[in-house]
């Protein structure tokens, strides 16, 4: 096997794992391999995938964003409050996304200008923003808005078959793939993650790249918040809590290195699907939720171990 073939095989590792798990589930549960179920899985995956796409950029930079769940929560509460107060739903939705981007920008500022380690910075904003969720919502869900436009974002179908969030996820996948593969910005993300010092001395505007990446991560979390709020028809004060872990897991399962500089967006999509398929399959097989966690964790560990083994 040539190194190139080996590298390709290694890159396809997560994809092969997904196929294996899916095949196994198809054999064990007759309900798994139906169009309806697969679309349901995809719709459930879309929320995690949207967050994980942004997280991929962050991790490629060698950073981490623990605040995605809280950003999701607070931006959702912002949109929902605006709508409940009678604002135009399109405006309210956009405002929520802008708010999410602004929260991400704040992370970026603290990390690049304030030189705070990403883990610490986003751990702090995660806590602060979750606190603000409670403050603004007084601890109870915000509901009582009805808008066809807004319900369509999470619950609608394109061509009467494909859920809108799935289309959104695929469009975002294409955008992120293009940005990472084809643009100067994408190249600079890899360069900063690979060797920040070399990148800086080569004239890469390292701080600006970081600001953009954390801003994007915030905006993507807010988008995921739109989908979630639309599905539930309300914004919960603890919406998105714990979502950072699934997003990080999807990125890592996809083969992106936590030390930065190496990875790809396709892997993240596959990683998110793998987690989604596992969740769905274990539900179909009526595995108790306690064991589900054990199995999910074990699969993540196994996948990452295989990945490390390959890289030797």
């Amino acid at each position, binding site marked *: 096997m040539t190194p190139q073939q080996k590298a390709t095989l290694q890159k396809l590792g997560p994809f092969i794992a997904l196929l294996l798990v899916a095949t196994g589930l198809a054999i064990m549960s007759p309900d798994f391999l139906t169009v309806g179920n697969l679309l349901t899985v995809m719709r459930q995956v879309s929320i995690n995938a949207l967050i994980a796409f942004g997280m991929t950029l962050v991790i490629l930079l060698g950073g981490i964003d623990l605040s995605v769940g809280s950003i999701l929560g607070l931006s959702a509460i912002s949109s929902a409050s605006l709508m409940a107060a009678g604002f135009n739903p399109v405006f309210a939705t956009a405002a929520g996304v802008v708010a999410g981007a602004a929260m991400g920008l704040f992370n970026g500022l603290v990390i690049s200008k304030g030189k705070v380690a990403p883990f610490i910075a986003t751990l702090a904003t995660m806590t602060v923003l979750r606190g603000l969720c409670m403050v603004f919502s007084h601890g109870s869900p915000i509901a009582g808005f009805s808008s066809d436009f807004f319900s369509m974002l999470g619950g609608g179908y394109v061509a009467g078959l494909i859920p809108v969030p799935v289309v959104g996820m695929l469009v975002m996948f294409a955008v992120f793939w293009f940005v990472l593969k084809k643009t*100067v910005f994408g190249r600079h993300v890899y360069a900063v993650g690979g060797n920040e010092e070399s990148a800086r001395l*080569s004239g890469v505007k390292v701080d600006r790249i970081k600001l953009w990446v954390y801003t994007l991560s915030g905006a993507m979390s807010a988008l995921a918040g739109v989908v979630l709020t639309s599905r539930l028809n309300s914004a919960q004060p603890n919406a998105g809590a714990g979502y950072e872990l699934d997003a990080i897991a999807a990125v890592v399962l996809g083969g992106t290195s936590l030390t930065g500089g190496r990875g790809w967006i396709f892997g993240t999509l596959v990683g998110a699907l793998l987690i989604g398929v596992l969740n769905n399959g274990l539900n179909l097989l009526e595995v108790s939720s306690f064991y589900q966690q054990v199995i999910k964790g074990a699969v993540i560990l196994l996948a990452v171990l295989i990945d490390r083994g390959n890289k030797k």
Partner: protein
Amino acid sequence: MHVSLRGISKSFGPVHVLQDVDFNILGGEIHALMGENGAGKSTLMKILSGVYRADKGEIVIDGQATPITSTQDAERLGIAIIHQELNLIPQLSVMENLFLGREPRRFGVIDSKAMRTAARTYLQALGADRIDPEAEAGLLSIGQQQMVEIAKALALNAKVLVMDEPTAALTDREIETLFGIMQQLKAQGVAIVYVSHRMEEIFRICDKISVLRDGHFVGERVIAQTSFDEVVKLMVGRELGDRFPKRDATPGAVRLVVKDLADAGNISKINFEVRAGEVLGVAGLMGAGRSEILKTLFGINPRTAGTVTLDGQPLHIRDAVAAIAHGLAFVTEDRKGQGLVLGMSVRENATLVHLNRYAHLGVVSSKAETTAVAKLIEQLRIRTRDAELDVKSLSGGNQQKVVFAKWLALPPKVLLLDEPTRGVDVGGKAEIYHIINQLAAAGVAIVMVSSELPEVLAMSDRILVMHQGHQAGIFDAKDATQETIMTAATGGQTAAFTADAPPVENVTA
């Protein structure tokens, strides 16, 4: 001790890096291993020291076939290696690096006092007393890190010591001390393998020389019975022109004017001018502030006093982005840490500085980029199977050419070079000198820091000599000799060793 590598072959994927190579080392001799960049020297030495395993062939020690399958095996057999690329752990202190994995213990805990004393002894033996054993390794200059690597290998009390380009980052004073130590070890019966691209050194210190070309063993010679010319011919397989190609550009108008330049504590009162098409060499001992001048000009270290003018315009440069925008380019001495992104491909590294040129509205045209890279690879004769390979899989000299490629395409108005030919072979050096000459002919003002005096003397129009952060003088290269420069660099007292250093001459084969 007699170590014999027999019929060694090694491939990385489809590339045969070594084919049926024989190599013999005897105790009490210093054996040079030479060959062009990518000839396979480091790979052969990594096989001897257990980093890689040979696909074919055997290692015979004192008549006994001895498989070496790990670095621990090699260490147990008394084989120590100083790797070409620095491998210190930057966050650990110098002494922690020195004794990594072999920390002296007392009652089960690390005995830092013993460790400090031992570290000091080893560093002193190398004449590197200025290195604090408790300093963080990552904060040392490249030369100092190299000294620590050497001390680390010496601490192993090896019977076979492999040195893969140990002097590439050192200045003459450290090299002299190192040579003294090598002579001592040789007298004690240690076998030393010395990999270097510096001919003068090899002819001064080594007893024998083995040459590799494209992964093949092409011959062993006794130093006393061979010549520069013969060795070059063995290595290159063809005749090589001037080692230092002539430049016939006459310097034009003054481009860069530096007045009373100072930074926060390393350098002060630096004054010089560089004309278009002129090469200003910068010489001095390790730590004299040579690199700091370049770093301050490029905006990496803040300037605390003085003025810098380029083409009559005062410059206020605070970071690399501004420096590049004003037409400055900087080939740093630390290609691993500051020059390259090792995990990226040759192509991605080569275009990192000027990627925007191949992009429209931020979208890179891969066709334009690939074409540009192919041109650079050809122009610099970078030896790589494929521009898509990770730059870290290239040989050291070829990595250095990739750093050049980054800046060459600009083209810059002022080119700052810090040890531009570190680890580059004779042929590659000549190519880089050629490129420097071409840039000079095109009107670029060049400032070149180098520890290789023959290079400074031959390539510069004028030479600025640094001594302890101050400017000891600027010499016209025509009148300067190794001696005058070393005298200035050491603050007046003549260094004893310059007397027996061979004169600079052009080697024609």
